């Protein structure tokens, strides 16, 4: 019965949201399911457990739903200081402690000229590169998620990877470098501006996110 249904449906005209925003019958699948998370800024009085501040907002798996979310949520430029958005593959918490991030790391770039940088556009383009799966080669499966941090002195955008280029898995290093180059391109950085990669473990041990960069592009 399912097969008959499917072939019948396929023979029917496929109407996209471009044909009919209110009557479309097909939508565009994403390669992965994604979850958007939000870190609330700590409140000045109590209740500042990290787990209370990190909120799961919504999970989606189509292009159309992504835009419904994006068009109805606060822009990065409207967020209070110490807020973060995290867009991660469903099932991965945006934390070093998640088992799937244990051996991973991240590429990141800090925009220190906050008023000069089109942060909303850059963050959108990074999210589109993540959900459109154009940050990495098909089989690498390194990307875990992307993040934007709103701080007093800077905006920072990062991309988290499953591995950190260490150990015996030599091929992962080239995958990571390729992701770094694509990331830099999406952020429209000049050749004299550098993205840095650091492993989560090193970041955790140094007690800050300013661990020594392992790779640079």
């Amino acid at each position, binding site marked *: 019965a399912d097969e008959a249904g499917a072939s019948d*449906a*396929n023979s029917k005209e*496929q109407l*996209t*949201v*471009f*044909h*009919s*925003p*209110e*009557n*479309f*019958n*097909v*939508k*565009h*699948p*994403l*390669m992965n399911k994604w979850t958007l998370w*939000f870190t*609330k800024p700590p409140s000045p009085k109590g209740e500042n457990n990290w787990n209370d501040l990190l*909120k*799961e*907002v*919504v999970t*989606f798996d*189509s*292009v*159309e*739903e*992504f*835009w*419904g*979310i*994006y*068009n*109805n*949520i*606060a*822009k990065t430029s*409207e*967020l209070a200081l110490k807020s973060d958005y995290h867009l991660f593959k469903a099932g991965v918490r945006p934390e070093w402690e998640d088992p799937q991030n244990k051996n991973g790391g991240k590429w990141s770039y800090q925009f220190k000229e906050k008023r000069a940088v089109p942060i909303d556009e850059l963050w959108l*383009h990074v999210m*589109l*590169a993540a*959900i*459109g*799966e*154009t940050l990495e080669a*098909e089989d690498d499966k390194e990307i875990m998620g992307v993040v934007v941090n709103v701080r007093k002195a800077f905006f920072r955008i990062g991309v988290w990877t499953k591995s950190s280029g260490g150990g015996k898995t030599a091929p992962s290093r080239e995958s990571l470098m390729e992701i770094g180059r694509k990331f830099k391109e999406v952020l429209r950085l000049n050749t004299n501006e550098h993205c840095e990669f650091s492993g989560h473990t090193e970041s955790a041990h140094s007690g800050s996110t300013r661990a020594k960069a392992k790779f640079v592009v």
Partner: protein
Amino acid sequence: LQIKTNEPAPPSAALTALKSARFIENIGSVNYPSGILSPNPALNPAASGKFKYEKDFLLQFQGVFTEKPSVDWDKTMRETVGEPETTRPSTAR
């Protein structure tokens, strides 16, 4: 039986379409209206299954699907991100 006082509004036509639409199975089989850029075939050699999409293709949806993605979206926002200073109109119409 629980009676909710803040009953969410019924879903909009666009949201109903989003929830009931099927996933495209073969990206090559879709005839986009003229003026709409199709997904880059070089990115999707297999044409079926799941697809990669370039930025310029994805950006075309920005002004087209503007509806809130669930009936209780406002509640979700209150409980997570909070509300932006400037509240957007709820629909583009």
